[in-house]
Structure formats: C-alpha cells, structure tokens
C-alpha cells in the first residue's frame, strides 16, 4: 500500500497512476500503466478506438477500479466519493436530459455539485457565455443541434469550476469551426491553471497538447511532448510517430 498524504498537496501531481492493470474477463484492457500528469498541463491521450482510452479515464476518475495498481488524484488515493467534486467529466455521449431546457440541465448538474442560489445562477450565466449558448438557455435541449448539445455538455463539465477537466473525445462528430473554438477554450482554461486530460484519435488535435500519451492495445507506448515524440521516432508528424511507435511496440510483444 502506498502512503498518500491525507490532504491534497499543492505539489502532488493532478493524476498519478502506478502499475495499473484492468481486465474484463479474460480480456486485458490496460496493462501495467504508470503515468503522472502534473497540474496545469493539457495532456492528450492518443490512441485508436478500442485501445483502452475510455477505460483509463474511468480509472483516473474513480468511476471504475483497477484490478492492480494504485490511482491518486491531487495526492488523494482514488476512488473516493469526495474527489468527484474536484473534477469535471465529459463522456463521449452528450448525456443531457432532452426534455429539459439548457438552463434546467445546467441547474440540475449544478445541484449535484452542491451549487445553489445566486452562485448557481452566476455560474450558469458564466459557462453559457463561455460556450456561446446564452441566447439558447431557455430552449428545450431536444431542439439543440449536435454542436449545441456538445457545447452544453462541455458547459456542464465546467460548471463547478473543477481543478481537473477530463474529456473523452470532446470533438467527435463536430464541425471544424466548432472544433477550433472548443480547443481555443481548452487552451484558455489550461492557461488559467486547470489541468485538462483529453482523449482523441485526431492527430492534428494532439499537436495542441502540452504532453501526449500514446496508447495502443492497452499499453502506454510513449509519453512526451508532441515535439519530443516526433524526435524520438525520427518522424515529422504525430501520425507517422504513432505508426512508428506502434510497430516498435508490436515487435516487442
């Protein structure tokens, strides 16, 4: 057992994984993953579909539990119910209540995080402005376009001013203009000191991250800055680097 301090240390990494493994039945989804993500970093998990990105994210957040290894968030051992208060999570599905208006959706999830009264209203207005939905707050969510739903979903994740933001493929199925605006938003949040962990399989998005983790077949095959990864593999694009690392990993196995 690792001795984690009781109070979150300012110096402790945002997320720290030690020798994580996860199996579903006979199938090994994640194998011996060790990774530390410092605070304030915009960290990208890059990997093809089915490589274990979503499972890794669920282990970090404590929604799922590892079969082997330990997970700590902000210095606290996970999973812990109270730690769910410290991060915002946006899954692949939009996960909104279609019968409710945008505002009612925000108010509901805000209440889940203990926000109420004037503070809740202020936060709703603030996140709505951030994702450019202020004029659509009183519309029923079922009438939203795909992009608006995605933005509202992001707004829900930002509502309680989390120190850590975990986003699972936030730009899937989103047009290029909106994709760019979401990434601009993520960079801005990152500059404010919010740690962001984002999964993606879009290579050009990966270049916008401070640091990248390449994941393939449940193994973490490389962790470095986008530039470092390209240098290591002697390639000029992330895409080529990913393929080069994938082949190397395949030979080892």
């Amino acid at each position, binding site marked *: 057992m690792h001795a984690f301090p009781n109070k979150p240390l300012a110096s402790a990494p945002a997320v720290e994984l030690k020798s994580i493994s996860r199996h579903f039945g006979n199938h090994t989804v994640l194998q011996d993953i060790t990774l530390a993500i410092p605070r304030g970093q915009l960290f990208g998990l890059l990997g093809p579909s089915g490589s274990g990105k979503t499972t890794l994210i669920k282990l970090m957040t*404590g929604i*799922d539990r590892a079969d082997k290894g330990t997970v700590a968030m902000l210095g606290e051992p996970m999973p812990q119910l109270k730690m769910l208060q410290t991060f915002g999570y946006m*899954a692949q599905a939009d*996960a909104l209540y*279609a019968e409710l208006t945008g505002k009612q959706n925000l108010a509901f999830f805000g209440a889940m995080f203990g926000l109420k009264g004037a503070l809740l209203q202020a936060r709703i207005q603030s996140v709505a402005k951030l994702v450019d939905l202020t004029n659509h707050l009183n519309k029923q969510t079922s009438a939203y376009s795909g992009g608006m739903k995605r933005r509202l979903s992001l707004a829900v994740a930002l509502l309680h001013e989390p120190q850590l933001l975990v986003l699972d493929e936030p730009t899937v199925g989103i047009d290029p203009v909106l994709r760019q605006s979401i990434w601009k938003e993520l960079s801005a949040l990152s500059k404010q000191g919010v740690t962001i962990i984002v999964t993606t399989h879009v290579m050009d998005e990966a270049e916008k991250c401070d640091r990248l983790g390449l994941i393939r077949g449940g193994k973490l095959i490389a962790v470095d800055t986008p530039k470092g990864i390209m240098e290591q593999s002697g390639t000029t694009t992330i895409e080529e680097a990913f393929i080069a690392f994938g082949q190397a990993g395949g030979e080892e196995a």
Partner: protein
Amino acid sequence: MRIKALAIRIIHQFIKDKRTLALLFLAPLLVLSLMKLIFDGQTVSPAIGAVDIPPTLIEKMEQLHADITVFANASDAQSALGTGDLAAILQLDGGQPKLILEGSDPSVNKAVLLLLQNAFQNGAASTSPTISYLHGGPDMAAFDAFGPVLIGFFSFFFVFLLAGVSFLRERTSGTLERLLATPIRRSEIVSGYLAGFGIFTLLQASLIAWFSVDVLGLYMAGSIGYMLVINLLLSLTALTLGTLLSSFASSEFQIIQFIPLVIVPQVFFSGLFNLDAMNPWLQKLSLIMPLYYGADAMQGIMIRGEGWMDFHRDVYVLIGFSLLFAILNVLALKKHRRM
C-alpha cells in the same frame, strides 16, 4: 431479394438476442401452465357452516361436494364467517332455514346458492331458506368484486413500466454515467427517484380511487383514505421493482419482456381468480407476490369495510418489499460505479 435480405437480418437479430428468443418460446408455456394450475385443479367445494341442521340435509349437501363444518352454536359459526374461513352459514331458526352468505366473491355466492337449491329440490326440506349477506348483497356485480384488485393491478402495472423505462433511458443516454461522475451517493439516486415518482404515483392513486368510487360507482364499504394508502404503497413497490429490473434490461424492448415474467403471474395470484382449486403448496407462491398483498387489502377495505387492524400486515409487507427492492437497487448501481 430485398425481402429475403430483410428476413435474414431479422433472423440474425433474433438469434443474437437470446433473451427475446427464450421469451418467445418459453413465456407462453409458463403462462399456459399457470392457467392450467388455476382453472383445472381439484373441484371447488364451498365451505359451509351448519348450525342445528338435520343430518339428512348435511348428508345431501356433502354428496353435492359441500365442505360442511358442524357448529354447536351460531356465534362460533358467525366468527368463522367473519374471518373468511366459511363461505356461508346454514342454520335453522325456529324451524325456518336461514342462509348467511359471506358475500365478498359473487362466484362463490353463486356456487353456494346453486348447491343449496339442488339440496332442497331433492326433498330434504320443504321450504327454501331466507338469504342474507355479511358483506355486499345480491346486487353486487362481478366488477364490484374484481374492481379493487384491478385498481391495484393497473397502478402497479403502469408505474412498473414507467419507472423501468425511465431508469433505463438514464442509462442508455449516458446521463447515469455523468450523474455517477458527480459526488452523489448511490442511495441518493434511488431516494431521488422515489421522491420524484412518488409525487406522481400519489396523484395517480388519488385519481384512480376517486374515479372508481365516485364515477364508476364501485362498491365501497370502507375508507377511501385507507384505499389511497394501499394504492400508494403498491405503486411504490412497482416503482422500486421497475427500477431494479431495468438494471437487467438493455433496451425498452427487454423491459416489455418482464411483463409475462413478473406481471402476469402476479395477476393470477392476486385474487382475481379463485385459488381454492389450486394445489395448496402452489397457492403458497402468492406469498412472494406484492400484488397479492395489495389486492387482499384493497378487497378487504372496499368490500368488507376493514379497518387498520384487519389489513395492517399487508401494509408492513408492502413496505418491506419496497425497502428490499430499493436496497437491491442501490447495490445494483455498483455495477456502474464501484463506490
């Protein structure tokens, strides 16, 4: 060509969905077996208490398959009738035969009257008996007897479907996952569902009670407040059972599949059908069916005008069921978040 492709696709889908396949073939067998057990058991012999009845008449009635119990005095017989152990009392009152029917179930009343008619026609006594009813009366229609059970059944059925489907949608739309990524406790989710749906089930129970008594004019001997309490408890049981079972369904379709497995058997054991003809150990199955307790209390209140002391056990059992299902539900949510 296209028709063939479509047909083949449907066959593939069926083969993949083992549960649907099993349901398609096995559910009709289950329901038919239940029906056979209920409608094709031993012959029904109405339980009649005899007070001061000449042995020749008793013999005659026993030949006609009556289940006769001889009582030494009228008051013992009366209390047996009150507890429902007897369907009727036949006594001689100053030489004049007198029949008191329990009256809750019109089909039992009919059976007793027919049996006595036959017995008297065969010349065992010269005069036909005067008839009186402990509950209800000669005008009580079949619907007056079934009504209380049906009220309970429909509350149960609709709340079960509604709760099951809405909890399932929470899962399939991804909102449950998002909800579980907030610091909410699993027990808080279940309690919240109970509170939110509880308000609507309370309204539904009130509407049904008012409509069936005041508009449809169902026979009502007891208190409408009691009726409301039972209906509400029955709905809560349906609510907790529906949300619990939705954890084991992956589509709305599979929720519908619970109807023949969970709802239909309860109907058979709810008191709509007389279970006296059924094998006694099979009758014991009704003890695990929530609808049985709800229907029993509803019939007691509406037909026999029962008070709290008569049906309080049903109330405790229904609360017990709701608590059990709610706790299992909290445990079932562990599948989605292990804390």
